[in-house]
C-alpha cells in the first residue's frame, strides 16, 4: 500500500483546497470528491486501527497515521475555508448565483447565519433607531438601493 488515499483523489483534494484558499469568491462545492474522500478516510482510519491492534510495525503505522492526518486536515480545511467565506459574505452569497455553489448543508448554515445576524443587528441597533432608518440593508427608506454595505 503506497498511499492511503488513491493518488488521484488526494491530488484533487489538494487542488480544490488550494483553489478555495486562493479565491476570494466561494467556488462550486466538490460534492463527489468530498464524499469519496470521507469514505476513504474512514476506511483508512479503520485500517490503521486494525494495524495498531495487530501489532504491525509501529514506524509504518505512524507513517500511515501521518498520511491520514494530512488528508483529514485537507478535508477539514477545505470545508472550513468555505464556511468562513459564507460567514464573511452572507448577504452577497444569498442574493446572487453564488448560492448555487453551496452544498445543501452550507445553504442551511448560510440561512441560519443570515437570520442570526439580522436578529442581532435588529436587537442591538436597528430597533432603537427612529422608523425609516431600521433597515439592515438600506441606510434609510430614502435609499433607492441596498446601500448599507454589510
Amino acid at each position, binding site marked *: 500500500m503506497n498511499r492511503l488515499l488513491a493518488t488521484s483523489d488526494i491530488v484533487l483534494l489538494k487542488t480544490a483546497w488550494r483553489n478555495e484558499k486562493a479565491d476570494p469568491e466561494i467556488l462550486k462545492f466538490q460534492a463527489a470528491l468530498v464524499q469519496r474522500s470521507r469514505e476513504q478516510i474512514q476506511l483508512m482510519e479503520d485500517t490503521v486501527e486494525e494495524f495498531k491492534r495487530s501489532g504491525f510495525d509501529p514506524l509504518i503505522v505512524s507513517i500511515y497515521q*501521518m498520511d491520514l492526518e494530512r488528508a483529514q486536515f485537507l478535508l*477539514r480545511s477545505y470545508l*472550513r475555508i468555505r464556511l468562513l467565506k459564507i460567514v464573511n459574505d452572507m448577504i452577497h452569497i444569498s442574493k446572487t448565483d453564488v448560492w448555487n455553489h453551496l452544498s445543501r448543508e452550507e445553504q442551511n*448554515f448560510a440561512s*441560519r447565519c443570515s437570520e442570526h445576524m439580522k436578529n*442581532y443587528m435588529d436587537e442591538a441597533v436597528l430597533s*432603537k*433607531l427612529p422608523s425609516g432608518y431600521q433597515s439592515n440593508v438600506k441606510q434609510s427608506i430614502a435609499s433607492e438601493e441596498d446601500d448599507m454595505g454589510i
Partner: protein
Amino acid sequence: MLGLAATLDLEIEQLDVWIVFLHGDLEDEIYMEQSKGFEVKGKEGLICCLRKSLYGLKQAPRQCFRGLRTSNNLLFSSVVATFFRWRLVSSIVLCHRLFRCNIMEHTEIYGKRACQLVKELASAEPGQLTRFNDDLFNQVIKECNVHYKQFYELTRKMQEEGLDVQSARNADHFGMLIHHLSLLRNKRCLMAYMYKRAEIIHSLSWKVRRILPQDIEEKLCDCEKRYFKNHSSALQSYMKEMGSLDLTVDTVPPKDPYIKVRVLEDIGVTAIGDRDTNLARHSIHFLKRTDAEHYIFQGMMEELVG
C-alpha cells in the same frame, strides 16, 4: 466635497479659519494684567478689559460660535462648519449663496460620540474585544433620536408654511438634510461597531465549543452573548449534518501526530481516544493534537516544544 459641489451644481467658498477665534465679542467682563514686554509706559499698574476673544480663553470657542451663528451671511455659517471639522456639513452648507442653514440649535459637535465609538475599535488589539461601551452606545442612539425629532419638526414647519418638503430649497430644507445625514452617519458607525465585534465573536466560535471563557464573556453585552450562542449552534448543526465531522480541530497542518503537553489546571480523569487519562495539574502527556487543541486554547494546557 468638490465632487458633490460639481454634481449638485453648487458654489464653493474657501476661507481660512485660523483667526476666527479672535473675532468673537465677549459678553462677560474679563480683565487681564498687561503682558510682560507689552506694558504701556506710565500705566504699568493698570489692567486691561478685554473686548474680543483671545486664543486660550476658555470662552473663546463659545463666543466665536455665537457670533457666527447669529450672522446672516452664509460665509460665516460655512466657517462654523469647517470650524467643527465636519466635512459633511461643510459640503452641504457651502452651497446656495442666498440661504442660511437652520441646524445649529445645539452647541455640540454632531457625530463626535459615534466617532469615539469607532475609534475604540480601531485602537483595540487586533482580534481582541474591548468591554462593550454601553454608555457611549446609548448616547449615540439618543443623538439619533434627537436628530429625528428635529428633522420632523422642520418638516412640519415647512408644511405649515405651505412649502413642498422635497423641492423647496430654504434654510429649513438644508437643516433637515443635515439632520438626516447625521443620523445616517451615526447609524453606520453603530452598525460598524456591532459588526466588527461580531466578526471577533465568529472567530471565537471556532475555538470555543459553547461556553465562553469568563474574561471574554464579561466584555460582551447581552445581545452579543445571544449572538455567540446562536452562531455556535449554527456551526454545530452544520457539523452534525455533515455526519459529526468536527471542523473546530486540526486548524494547523499536522507536523507531528502527537504533541507533548503540560496540564496547567486540574482537569481530572478524561476519556482521551480509547483510554481514560488522569489530566492532573503539572502532569505531562503525549496527546494527539486534535485532542489537546481545545484545552490549549482555554489555557488549561500548554504545548511543550523542543
